[in-house]
């Protein structure tokens, strides 16, 4: 099995070995815009977290190409089972940044009603399945969705995203094994960013590569420069084409780097040398894509600035909008646990409501919660 790193743009030490995918200029610029928007959202959200305006955040800094470039190779009918570090997928599939911010604020406009921590999005309208914290669970679920697509003879694919650390989870094994056995149209994207919180890659696997694991499950495994958005697109496009015509799953390992801390709760300087970040900063996926677009005369300086300005404006408006909305009503806590509430839940809510009305319960983080 070839484990050569797929590269379109080339990079110091990595020769370009794959032709650029045939994407229209508008498509290329749209991918670029979403990468920039994701970067700006990241920066702003980390600041909001530091200011105590949102409770938590997971930066995707440095991994924009890896998740946005892969997702760009899908159609709207395909299903996505992402991890918590892939916000650009929702943006690329048409969700407004304001919707992400409502979720991060956990307010009453968030259609998941502040039930989960920030960045644990869920958008059925774009076939993006609810993100959970437990590592690896989405991998087996994606295999199942892909099996269902095959059973129904529909030409869609399921794609799932997970980190290098996640390859140690039980569900990584289960998911790849099922997809392999049932030849399911599933694309497994391992975003190898070198770290699982404080544990470096070599503490996770003794395998030379993550892509090599594909062989054991009877599917192709490819390695791609995860900071080269066009290479990532090309690798995914090929895998999707195979899956759509019944040739089964693929494991794609994107080689990238987690430039920030694991999350807003983590201080990476406690366990890794900041110097490695300098090396990776030179391989920044947005800088490289920008240079490539400029070289092809597809992006002018003024145009780039206009894209940034628009993203900034959209973000500013989104933050203003999300800040204005209050917390969800307490009653909503009991909704959606089951299709209909149990008698026990009814009784618990009645008691709680009565206590809240009488001012018995202490005020919450946002002040008074509406009933």
């Amino acid at each position: 099995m070839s484990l050569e790193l797929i590269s379109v743009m080339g990079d110091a030490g990595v020769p370009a070995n794959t032709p650029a995918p045939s994407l229209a200029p508008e498509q290329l610029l749209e991918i670029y815009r979403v990468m920039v928007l994701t970067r700006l959202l990241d920066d702003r959200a980390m600041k909001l977290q530091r200011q105590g305006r949102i409770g938590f955040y997971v930066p995707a800094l440095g991994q924009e190409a890896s998740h946005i470039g892969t997702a760009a190779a899908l159609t709207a009918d395909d299903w996505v089972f992402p991890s918590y570090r892939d916000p650009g997928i929702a943006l690329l599939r048409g969700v407004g940044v304001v919707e992400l911010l409502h979720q991060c604020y956990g307010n009453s406009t968030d259609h998941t009603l502040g039930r989960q921590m920030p960045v644990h999005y869920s958008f059925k309208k774009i076939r993006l399945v609810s993100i959970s914290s437990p590592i690896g669970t989405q991998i087996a679920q994606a295999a199942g969705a892909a099996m269902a697509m095959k059973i129904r003879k529909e030409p869609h694919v399921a794609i799932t995203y997970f980190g290098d650390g996640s390859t140690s989870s039980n569900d990584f094994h289960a998911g790849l094994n099922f997809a392999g056995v049932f030849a399911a149209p599933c694309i497994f994207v391992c975003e190898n960013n070198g770290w699982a919180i404080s544990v470096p890659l070599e503490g996770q696997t003794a395998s030379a590569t993550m892509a090599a694991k594909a062989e054991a499950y009877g599917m192709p495994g490819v390695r791609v420069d995860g900071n080269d958005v066009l290479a990532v697109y090309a690798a995914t496009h090929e895998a999707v084409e195979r899956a759509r015509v019944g040739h089964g799953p693929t494991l794609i390992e994107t080689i990238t780097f987690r430039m920030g801390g694991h999350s807003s709760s983590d201080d990476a300087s406690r366990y890794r040398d900041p110097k490695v970040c300098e090396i990776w900063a030179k391989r920044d996926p947005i800088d490289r894509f920008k240079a490539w677009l400029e070289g092809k005369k597809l992006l002018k300086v003024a145009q780039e600035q206009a894209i940034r300005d628009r993203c900034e404006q959209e973000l500013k408006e989104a933050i203003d909008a999300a800040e204005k909305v209050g917390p969800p009503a307490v009653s909503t806590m009991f909704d959606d646990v089951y299709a209909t509430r149990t008698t026990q839940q009814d009784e618990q809510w009645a008691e709680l409501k009565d206590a809240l009305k009488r001012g018995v319960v202490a005020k919450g983080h946002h002040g008074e919660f509406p009933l």
Partner: protein
Amino acid sequence: MPVMTMVEAINDALRVEMRRDPRVVLLGEDVGVKGGVFGCSAGLWKEFGGDRVMDTPLSESGIVGAAIGMALYGLVPVAEIQFSDFIYPAFDQIVSEAAKMRYRSGGEYTVPMTIRTPIGGGIRGGHYHSQSPEAYFAHTPGLKVVVPSTPSDAKGLLLASIRDPDPVLFMEPKLVYRTLKEEVPEGEHVVEIGKARVVRSGKDVTLIAWGGMVGMCEKAAAKCAEEGIDCEIIDVRTIVPLDEATILESVKKTGRAVIVYEAPKTGGFGGEISAILAEKAIEWLEAPILRVTGFDTPFPYTLESVYLPEPGRIREAVLKVVRF
């Protein structure tokens, strides 16, 4: 005596035991170089090295399964599960394997292993960084379940757990991790497993709690005292084995019981305590046994403070049983 937080007391207990017993090893995600996501194992990797403090791959079944193997072979492993919300991939290893090894091998093989894991709300962690899953595990013969509520007990009970001949699930309330400081004895300090603690004595009502809810009961009791109601508080400390004697003695004295726990009400361990009181103390009861608990919903993010039992709701229950 040094003053410590619960995190520091746990760290101290691990250090004391690792220095005393070379068989003790730590393993888990981020426990080594980083010293644990909450800092419970800070400095230990430096002091004892990578053979005794192991950063493992990201697999809870791997962590617990490997710890079982180490224990069978003669080591004394202390495994960390980063959050109890992530313990479920290891459920099989804990429930089917660790808990049943002694029984199924006719006592030949034993698993003297401790699994440390943070539980409960209080850090705005939503569904997956807030759960209190003690009841699932209390339902497993062969496994001990310990939940300290103070720094000093955390140290004493952790030392007892590591030295216990059976597997112990040691659940650490995040709500208390850094909020409570107290004097903790240096060096040796063992608190016996299976003994509840009378936190506050009183004559009118018995409040029964564990972990993060003990502090909530203390606040509620202080409020009730202003209103002339004298609460006794029992910190259960070990869910399994349960110190029924201390609980029964208290309830027979006060005639009233309010049980407080963070987990969803249905199927929570407080139901078991309530059943024991109904079986063994019904003649002494002056009022129904009440429970103040989390709700039958996943643990919410924004509405965390409404979900968690707090002094206001506890006081309400106290008034109810006193006025019954």
